[in-house]
């Protein structure tokens, strides 16, 4: 794959990269197809994907920045006798999306309606369908995560998988997971650790430790949000309603684990690489100026699968499961290994444990 022309995620330094590029891309197409899609001038970024695609960015901006402008645009289009049915429908969707309520407080019907609107909006623009889910938490499920420090070799496959699964902005190389490279014999010395290395791993005399959102049981980030755009679900996942977030970044300042990310500019995902299996609270396409974070891959975990990072880890350092299920692997780890959590003195009660063999 042409690494030089690719301006987005290219951290693929592990051994798997050769295999991946020789057969096919993550999008499932042949290498050539994928590449041509990358460089095509028709490439759409996240914002265009969410809203009107036929417009170029400038016109889209003019129509969409201020909500009043959107409103005016939507009203005039939907009342207009000249404009076609499709653009009327689009305007109607944009209008309803702009003024919808907080997802957390929506009734089941309203949740279904907004999910359908978003899927329909995507279909109207691209002609392709996405599978957007609003699946809620299941009873007697509480998700937990464990990380085996002795097994992690710093291959970063988890990071790659996470970026692809969750449709993260390729332009800013946003990554939910950070892998800290630490020197042997110094303990967990984050100050001297490197979380942005570009060399062959595992490096001599080093060990690796991954951090991400820990889905605290007592999360400081949700408490500070002025508009309740982020909260903890029944199954323990700390989620964000991207459409409700006002972008004040207070949650980011409150997180002691560097677990949150902000879309400083328009997120860009090449159309061909979009993961179309989406969840409203998870990997659907984001806008600029909103917070996002790891959701333990809500679109996967609520469907009974492991998060993408767990599945991608070549060493088996990552373990995920239901804490309320006595037969789960995570329970076995918690009961049989000596586990610890980071910054326990803060009282945040992370649902993320570290252990060593």
């Amino acid at each position, binding site marked *: 794959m042409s690494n030089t022309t690719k301006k987005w995620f290219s951290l693929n330094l592990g051994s798997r990269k050769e295999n991946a590029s020789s057969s096919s891309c993550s999008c499932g197409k042949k290498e050539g197809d994928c590449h041509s899609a990358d460089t095509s001038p028709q490439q759409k970024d996240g914002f265009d994907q969410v809203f009107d695609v036929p417009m170029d960015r400038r016109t889209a901006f003019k129509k969409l920045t201020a909500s009043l402008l959107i409103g005016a645009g939507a009203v005039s289009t939907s009342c207009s006798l000249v404009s076609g049915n499709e653009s009327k429908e689009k305007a109607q969707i944009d209008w309803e999306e702009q003024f919808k309520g907080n997802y957390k407080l929506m009734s089941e019907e309203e949740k279904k309606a907004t999910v359908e609107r978003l899927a329909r909006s995507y279909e109207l623009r691209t002609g392709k369908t996405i599978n957007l889910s609003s699946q809620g938490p299941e009873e007697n499920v509480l998700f937990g995560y464990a990380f085996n420090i002795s097994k992690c070799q710093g291959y970063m496959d988890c990071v790659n998988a996470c970026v692809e699964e969750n449709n993260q902005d390729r332009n800013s190389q946003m990554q939910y997971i950070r892998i800290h490279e630490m020197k042997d014999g110094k303990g967990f010395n984050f100050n001297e650790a490197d979380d942005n290395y570009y060399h062959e791993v595992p490096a001599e005399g080093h060990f690796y430790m991954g951090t991400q959102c820990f889905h605290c049981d007592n999360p400081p980030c949700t408490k500070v949000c002025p508009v309740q755009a982020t909260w903890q679900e029944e199954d323990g996942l700390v989620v964000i309603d991207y459409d409700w*977030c006002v972008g004040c970044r207070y949650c980011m300042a409150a997180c002691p684990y560097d677990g949150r990310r902000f879309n400083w500019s328009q997120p860009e995902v090449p159309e061909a690489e979009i993961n179309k299996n989406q969840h409203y609270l998870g990997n659907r396409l984001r806008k600029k100026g909103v917070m996002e974070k790891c959701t333990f891959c809500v679109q996967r975990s609520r469907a009974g699968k492991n998060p993408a990072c767990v599945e991608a880890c070549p060493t088996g350092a990552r373990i995920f499961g239901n804490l309320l299920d006595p037969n789960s692997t995570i329970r076995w780890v918690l009961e049989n290994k000596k586990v610890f959590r980071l910054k326990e003195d803060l009282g945040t009660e992370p649902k993320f444990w570290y252990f060593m063999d």
Partner: protein
Amino acid sequence: MFTVFISLVKDSLQAILHGSKKYHLWMAFLTFIMLIGMYCYTIQLEHGLSVTGMTDRVSWGLYISNFTFLVGVAAAAVILVMPTYVLKDIDFKQAVLIGEGLAVAALIMCLAFVVADMGGPSVLWHMLPGIGVFNFPDSMLTWDVIALNGYLFINISIPFYILFRHYQGKDALSKVYVPGALLSVLWAVGIHLVTAFLYQGLQARPFWNNALLGPRFLASAFAAGPALIILVLALIRYSSSFRIEDKTLKKIGIVVTVAAQINLIMLVSELFKEFYAPTHHSESAYYLFFGLHGKKALLPWIWTAISMNLIATLLLTFHKLRNNFKILYFACSLLFIAIWIEKGFGLIVPGFIPGPYGKIAEYTPTGIEIGVTLGIWALGAFVFTILAKTAIKIELGQLRYKKETVSKE
């Protein structure tokens, strides 16, 4: 009543739109700066906050720094309100209206800075109670929204009532405005404490998570705010016939002095805690004062601020020096700038450095960020000039309701 109001609006428009050549030049200059700020803001709207120097590592910068500082300036009006209305000290009466005008301008700037810092200004209606969802009382930011807007309301309504009465040639009734003034005294302390709690309540940032933060905010605010009021009053004294006595300036000078001294004592206490027995949590302070691992972007700022602070406080402490107006003005300017640096760069930025996992990423504001910031400061100066001009004209008796033009009041 309503006709009086209409007439007041018309008359004050007349007052605002007419003035000396200097006045017009001043307003044109401010408008120009505001237009530059608006242009910068449109760029920010189009490209998102990526045009600022902020990153995932340092997620608050110049905007929030200025916001924090200006909350203090707004709160400082109370230092004049209290003696005038409550202790019936007549010396301050002239200064109060100016002080409250300054508070209104500062609060408008605060709100503008917060809006400028938002990632999604088009969905800010989510914050309005009623149609949005307010995370009250959990989020300190919602407390801050209530506190700031309430204070803005108080500071508009009290001077408006007084000026409205004076406009009609009547005396303002003390039983109407004194309860409001008393409330504003409590409220002023409240807005600054709440703003401090915004930072103080974050266990993730040890640099802010410190019990002295709130009180130190108050001390520095009661130094910087009245220092600005002294400078503004001095300017008004020279540019209009509005009489402000020497006694008034000197009394405000004492307030500034005491506050600046207390602020220094608290600084010493903070430094002692961080450096006598340094822990892991002292790293932000180390970064701020001495630099960390070769990164030392804030050093020139903080040491400038500290030396200015020391010089100003020293000058103010000696009666002979303080009572010399030239030295007083100089010391007040020094103090104002020193506290602006200290409450801005010296407080917000090091809170994020080093990050939760010890990563040191430095922050430098971009040109666009600076442009928006200057624009908002110009907006504040513009609002204040308008308010002060109207208020002074009414107080001087140049602006009066003409009864003969309408039949009944």
